[in-house]
């Protein structure tokens, strides 16, 4: 598991979804190298689409 705490810059999202986002980001960084930006974005986007319905974007 990656060390370090996620810092939320700006948000308009339910607390539970924020938690999902930070958990997925952490998981993505376990799976992929930090330089694999597109793979990380793809992973988070696909998981959010699955968990919270389609139409999510990730940068």
């Amino acid at each position: 598991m990656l060390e370090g705490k996620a810092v939320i810059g700006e948000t308009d999202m339910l607390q539970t979804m924020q938690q999902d986002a930070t958990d997925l980001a952490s998981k993505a960084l376990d799976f992929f190298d930090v330089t694999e930006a597109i793979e990380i974005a793809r992973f988070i986007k696909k998981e959010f689409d699955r968990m919270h319905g389609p139409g999510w974007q990730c940068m």
Partner: protein
Amino acid sequence: MEGAEEELERRSKFLKSLIQKKKTIEQQEQHDHLQHNNVRVRACDMPLPLQSRAFRCARDLLDSMPPKKLDSKRLALTLKKEFDSSYGPAWHCIVGTSFGSYVTHSLGGFVYFSIDKVYVLLFKTAVEPLDHS
């Protein structure tokens, strides 16, 4: 009857060659325009006129900014607003020098390009009406 068919065939070929010529000229103009403006298209699903508008808008704005002082937020905001007002909602724009992305976009509403050393991602998504039931 055969003469009429031959005439139709001849006209059809002539029209096809005209269309092909026009396409070639347009592509050449687009290529020259891109080189002149230092634009490189990285990925695209967008009609040429919309692409040109995005490049022109980005170029004009970058030229109006002081050198080495990129206001990426302003560039993103301007492009987004410009496309929202001209081509309907909802456009999204990300501007930066280093970012990865994975997005879902509407058909014909996606362009990812670089201009100078700035990368621009501009894409459209469908807007669902709010359910007031």
